[in-house]
Structure formats: C-alpha cells, structure tokens
C-alpha cells in the first residue's frame, strides 16, 4: 500500500513537472512528501518556479500563476488516474489571453483521455470545444438552453443570436 502510493505519487510528480513547463513555457515545479519516514500519512508540499523567477513560496505567486500551477497539478492527476469526465467551471477567470491559449492547448491534449464539460466566458477557451451550449434567461428567472456556434459568441462569451434552441 505504501508502494502503491509512492508509485502513483512519482507518476503524478513527473506529469506535474512536465505539464507545469508546458503551461509556463519553462520554469520548474515539484511535489514533495513532507516526511519521508511517514509516507502513508504525511502532507504534500508544492513548489513552483515560473521561468526566469527564483523559487519562493507558492503563496507569493500571482492570481494567474496560481491557476496555471493548479491546472498543471489537476491534469497531472488525470494522467495518473484518468477521470472519465471532468467539469471545469470558469477555471480561466484569472488568466490573461496568453495563458488562456496555453490552458486551451492543454485541454485539447487531454480530450482523448477525459471528457470535458467547460463553463467559460473566454472565447479562446471555446476554441477547444466540440460542442457549444448557450444558457440564457429569456423568460425572467428561467434558464433555457440554446445551441450556439463559435461565430455567434463574442470575445467575452456574449451570445449574439436569438435563434431558438
């Protein structure tokens, strides 16, 4: 059981480092068992060093950097034990456009492994989508679903069509 955990931990670790570098275009990252003597119970530390920057506490990372680091770790876990589906609700809220593009590129890489349901306001994230649903409230307080085409969506997710579902 300790063996299983350590093996999985190592797989996640290698994936995390690779995904972090992909999402940041460089830099370094690691996950570390706090107590090598107590592998089955100890906590897990995360280190992350964006490219060109020195290593410092992850709490000092910016909002966008924290999102990218968290995405690298989450997807590293998918690679180790693929979740058959994954629901992401506005995960890209803190990202600038350059980072949204890198996040969307990683999403596309995982499409064969995991099915995604992605809620977003960002058009660049929608480039990864096979299907786009719009949710609107034509009747006050009542949600309705509508099919939407990529061309009908604005830069920040506004829907520019009044077609019925």
């Amino acid at each position, binding site marked *: 059981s300790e063996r299983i955990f350590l093996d999985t931990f190592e797989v996640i670790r290698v994936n995390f480092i690779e995904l972090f570098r992909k999402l940041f275009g460089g830099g370094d990252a690691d996950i570390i068992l*706090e107590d090598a003597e107590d592998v089955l119970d100890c906590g*897990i530390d995360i280190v992350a060093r964006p490219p060109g920057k020195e290593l410092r506490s992850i709490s000092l990372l910016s909002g966008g950097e924290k999102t990218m680091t968290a995405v690298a770790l*989450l997807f590293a876990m998918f690679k180790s034990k693929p979740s058959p589906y994954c629901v992401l609700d506005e995960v890209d809220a803190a990202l600038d456009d350059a980072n949204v593009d890198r996040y969307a590129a990683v999403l596309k890489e995982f499409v064969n492994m995991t099915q995604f*349901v992605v809620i977003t306001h960002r058009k660049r994230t929608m480039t990864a989508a096979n299907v786009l649903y719009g949710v609107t409230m034509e009747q*006050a*307080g009542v*949600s309705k679903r509508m099919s939407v085409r990529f061309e009908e969506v604005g830069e920040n997710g506004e829907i520019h069509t009044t077609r019925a579902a």
Partner: protein
Amino acid sequence: MLKSLEVFGFKSFADRTRFEFDSGVTCVVGPNGSGKSNVVDAIKWILGDQSAKSLRGKDMLDVIFNGSAGRKPSGFAEATLTFDNSTGLFPSESTEVQIGRRLYRSGDSEYLLNQAVVRLKDVKDLFMGTGAGTAAYSIIEQGRVDQILQANPTTRRVVFEEAA
C-alpha cells in the same frame, strides 16, 4: 462517458431541459446569472451530494425551482444523468446507465437507476471501482481552482489518495 443531463424544476431550470455531451469538450457559455453553474450543481446533486452548502444553498429544498416573475414555484426538482455503458464499465446489462434524483417540497426524495427507484447506497455501489463517481479532482467549482494550492498539506493529501 457522460451522454446527457436532463434537469426539470432544478434551480433556475423550471422547464425540462436537456444537454447532450460531446465525447470531447462541451463548452457552456452565457451571461452572469443565467444558470451555467446550476448545471454543475445538478451533476453534483445527481452523484449524491448531501450538502446544501456544497450546492450553494442553505437548505436542500433550495434546489427546487422556487418561482420567478410570472412563474409559480415547482413542486419538485428532478435531474437525470445518462452514462454510456457500451464498455461494460458499470455492473449493469444495458448499454446506457441512467441515474436520476428527485426532491419534493415535502422533503421526500428518490433516487432512480434506469428509472427504477433505488436507495442512495445502490447509486454509490454502482460507481464503486468505476472511477466515475466524482473524484475530488473531477469537478472544479467556480472560484475553486486554486483550492489545491491553498489547502494545507494534509488536506491536499486526501486528493492525492483519490488519484492513487
């Protein structure tokens, strides 16, 4: 894996509404307050979430459509998730597995498996070993993406163990 979601009387979905999920990426877009995160809540709810707080409510009855200008409240909330079972992942004969949940204003609630009433335990058993019944890392709620970084190292461990 996920084929479709149907909601009826669930939060802002007063009318029966269906989402068909693509095998790749399905994006859901729309204005603030339109109901996108309510779709996420519906998925969590069907998979057995027992916490009103986790569904952003104060009370479990908060998931029942409670009216709007020109619409009376619903008598119950219902949501159904259809899974593909062509690979035989689930311990079931059919090529599709349908899990439904209903909550009435009285507080009575039901779980449905392929439209037969079952207990929550039966739903949980169905998912056991399939890796499909919500891992801590397969539903990332709005505003929560950084949570794994903020969590203390021990809480984080729990998520790792799910992936192990």
